[in-house]
């Protein structure tokens, strides 16, 4: 700091610098946020009578977590869960298989421009459409059942995996890939020995993460008729059978925790 600015600062108490430095922008953001919040909360309509009535039901639901009922709808829960697991496994495998070529095509450093644009278009479409909306369309087209869910989840997996894989390929070290190319390798050999070893560990990690996501999503696809535990859960809520619903939710939380733990172990082994 030069002597002049130092002299100016001396004797003045220190103040914490603001996160947004431009005062106009800062106050504009603060006032804008306050106006928006007051407008938005003003347009909320709360039916307090319904809420107070519902609070008792809410309390019953919390109590139901202490006494979950796995038995009385045991077969329904088991069938729904198996269907969810089946959808998860198949859609993850098919999704990975499809996203590998698309991910290669969506990496600018190895794909020609037309291929790149098509693959990026597929990725963007798959990411922009919500799973539930895709599931609604798939149920309309393919009929009720796990097939619609399987197609939905595979489609969603493509957007997720191909995008991250393409970014990973774009970040890879060119030196290794070029070394393989200079030995006179064919295109397949180049991908296999120059590119693949650099992205594989991360791809395995991401696939495990996607398996986890697909399981969570498969639990809601049943709400729109695309198979899985969601249908059982929906029925339980409709009948106010909170103890069964609590049992299903506990199973979902437990499975997700186990999957997260396992995927952590596998990712550590691979990397």
């Amino acid at each position, binding site marked *: 700091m030069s002597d002049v600015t130092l002299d100016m600062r001396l004797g003045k108490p220190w103040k914490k610098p603001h996160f947004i430095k431009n005062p106009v922008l800062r106050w504009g953001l603060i006032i804008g946020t306050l106006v928006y919040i007051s407008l938005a909360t003003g347009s909320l309509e709360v039916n307090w009578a319904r809420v107070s009535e519902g609070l008792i039901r809410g309390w019953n639901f919390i109590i139901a977590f202490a006494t979950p009922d796995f038995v009385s709808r045991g077969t329904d829960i088991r069938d729904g869960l198996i269907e969810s697991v089946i959808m998860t496994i198949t859609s993850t495998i098919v999704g990975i298989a499809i996203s590998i070529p698309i991910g290669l095509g969506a990496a600018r450093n190895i794909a020609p421009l037309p291929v790149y644009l098509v693959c990026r278009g597929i990725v963007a479409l798959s990411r922009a459409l919500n799973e539930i909306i895709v599931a609604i369309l798939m149920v309309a087209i393919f009929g009720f059942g796990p097939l619609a869910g399987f197609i939905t989840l595979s489609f969603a997996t493509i957007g997720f995996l191909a995008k991250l894989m393409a970014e990973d390929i774009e970040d890879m070290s060119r030196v290794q890939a070029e070394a393989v190319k200079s030995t006179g390798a064919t295109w397949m050999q180049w991908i296999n020995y120059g590119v693949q070893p650099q992205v594989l560990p991360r791809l395995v990690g991401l696939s495990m993460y996607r398996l986890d996501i697909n399981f*969570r999503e498969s639990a809601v696809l049943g709400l729109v008729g695309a198979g899985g535990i969601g249908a059982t859960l929906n029925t339980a809520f409709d009948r*106010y059978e909170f103890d069964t619903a609590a049992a299903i*939710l506990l199973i*979902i939380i437990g499975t997700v925790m186990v999957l997260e733990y396992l995927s952590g172990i596998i990712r550590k082994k691979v990397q």
Partner: protein
Amino acid sequence: MPVTETSSGQKIWQLRTRNQTLIRWFAYLVTVAAFMWCWAEISKSTTWYFVWDAPRIAADIGSRSFPPKWEYINELWLPIWDTLNIATLGTILALLMAVPVAFLAASNTTPSKVFVRPIALVVIVSTRSINSLIWALLLVSIIGPGVVAGLLAIAIRSIGFCAKLLYEAIEEIDPKQIEAISATGASRWQVMVYGIVPQILPAFAGISVFRWDINIRESTVLGLVGAGGIGLQLQSSLNVLAWPQVALILIVILVAVVVGEWVSAKVRGAII
């Protein structure tokens, strides 16, 4: 990397040892077997007649939904506003709850590692592993249908996500700055405000915008279970098979998602 020698003395290099190769083939075998079994189960519960008919049905739906019914947009302004509110207020509410949870969960700021931290981690995992649609289903059956149920569903679902990313950011802060501030004789509260908060503020801003972007997507479908927003219109249009309206709603949702993603990318670009 193993090198084997043939009887003629020539050395052969292989990428993996024999056991590694066997393990790999076994893993492939298990995966293929699992896939085949799962596929058999799926095809058992599929009505294949519908599937063979799928291309015709898809073409039929496509021709019915074109052109989209543009004048229907006038009935959509209020649902769009509701959807935006669900996403934004839900995110704000989630952040208000996620900050304390994150401070309790981070191993360097938690008051007790044995007692408080596990509870905070359970809150994080359980809110995160249940989809917002399920939270909405639950809240609709408790407090009744409407925007508030959707807002709360989004808020609860986002706690775990925000708290997880935030506590990781807190754990990664530079301890030297904290020490420097404690060395001036600062109180616990002052250490928090001057030592920890400025270090995690950029991460916090990034996380909020990121989650807001995700919540825009999720809030568009909450109406399917009665929790307000544009999903309600989607549901009622689907129920009466009004495909031109469905097409318009899908276009609106797509635009909303793209705009949300653009805004969040801009804001994150400005912060980081």
